[in-house]
């Protein structure tokens, strides 16, 4: 089980994500944004949180055009797994690998606190460790987490059971309280809350651990 964690200038959750992967049993390589190839036989690519390129232009916009992102795109198009958390979710949307966009929070404030999420589907290799409708607590830390998309795409996401997590209560104005979504093949997850920051019981709530454990189990089975 191999994970690659991308590192951009301004990434600040890359090491947390690597630790969460390692604790779940993954071998982890850190991959610099200027590299044009992923290490061989990578099972999952993690796009971490942070403020890549200072959030210049738009959050995630410049990272989404980095050399390594072409390799990420090929990996996903081959059916590879990817997870984008917070700024990583913004990057995945900017690459077009997931639909929609993230706008400034409706309250215009940076929000940094633990939030309660409803697991909106257990039918994915990311969320198999949870029960549908179960609540989990992950921290959020973002200024631009207000998910938006057109009505047709929203209907499609809901119809195809691709909303992975919803905020139990409105946090940032996201349409339909969406906190995280899956790709069509259910192998790419993007979410604003941070499961990797809730993955070690020594540091507080550890609801995120089941996500990484489920991923690790998937790859063993595959």
């Amino acid at each position, binding site marked *: 089980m191999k994970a690659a964690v991308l590192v951009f200038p301004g990434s600040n959750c890359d090491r947390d994500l690597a630790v969460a992967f390692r604790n779940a049993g993954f071998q982890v390589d850190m991959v610099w944004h200027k590299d044009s190839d992923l290490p061989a036989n990578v099972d999952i690519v993690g796009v971490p949180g942070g403020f890549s390129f200072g959030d210049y232009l738009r959050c995630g916009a410049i990272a989404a*055009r980095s050399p390594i992102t072409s390799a990420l795109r090929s990996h996903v198009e081959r059916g590879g797994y990817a997870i984008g958390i917070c700024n990583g979710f913004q990057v995945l949307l900017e690459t077009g690998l997931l639909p929609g966009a993230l706008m*400034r929070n409706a309250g*215009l404030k940076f929000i940094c606190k633990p939030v309660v999420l409803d697991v909106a589907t257990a039918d994915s290799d990311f969320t198999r460790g949870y029960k549908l409708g179960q609540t989990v607590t992950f921290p959020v830390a973002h200024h631009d987490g207000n998910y938006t998309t057109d009505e047709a795409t929203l209907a499609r996401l809901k119809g195809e059971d691709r909303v992975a997590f919803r905020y139990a209560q409105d946090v940032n104005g996201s349409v339909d309280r969406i906190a995280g979504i899956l790709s069509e093949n259910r192998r790419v997850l993007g979410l604003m809350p941070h499961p990797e920051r809730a993955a070690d019981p020594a540091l507080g709530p550890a609801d995120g651990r089941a996500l990484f454990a489920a991923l690790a189990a998937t790859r063993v089975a595959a």
Partner: protein
Amino acid sequence: MKARVHIMLKTGVLDPQGEAVRHALGTLGFEGVTGVRQGKVIELDLAETDRAKAGADVARMCETLLANTVIEQYDVELL
């Protein structure tokens, strides 16, 4: 040649920042502001001298990087 790109949120996309500015204007006593939309302006210095080609180049830059066409629309002005 210079190009100026105006990027605005598409009609129908809620603009929380514009709404906050509208609210602040009301608080300051400026009445009758019924809507505020906030966008950005990007100026480019171009080596290209052919206007048609420059316009096409900048449009491609907008599609590729400068605008997120999921939520934004752009308008290119050649100076």
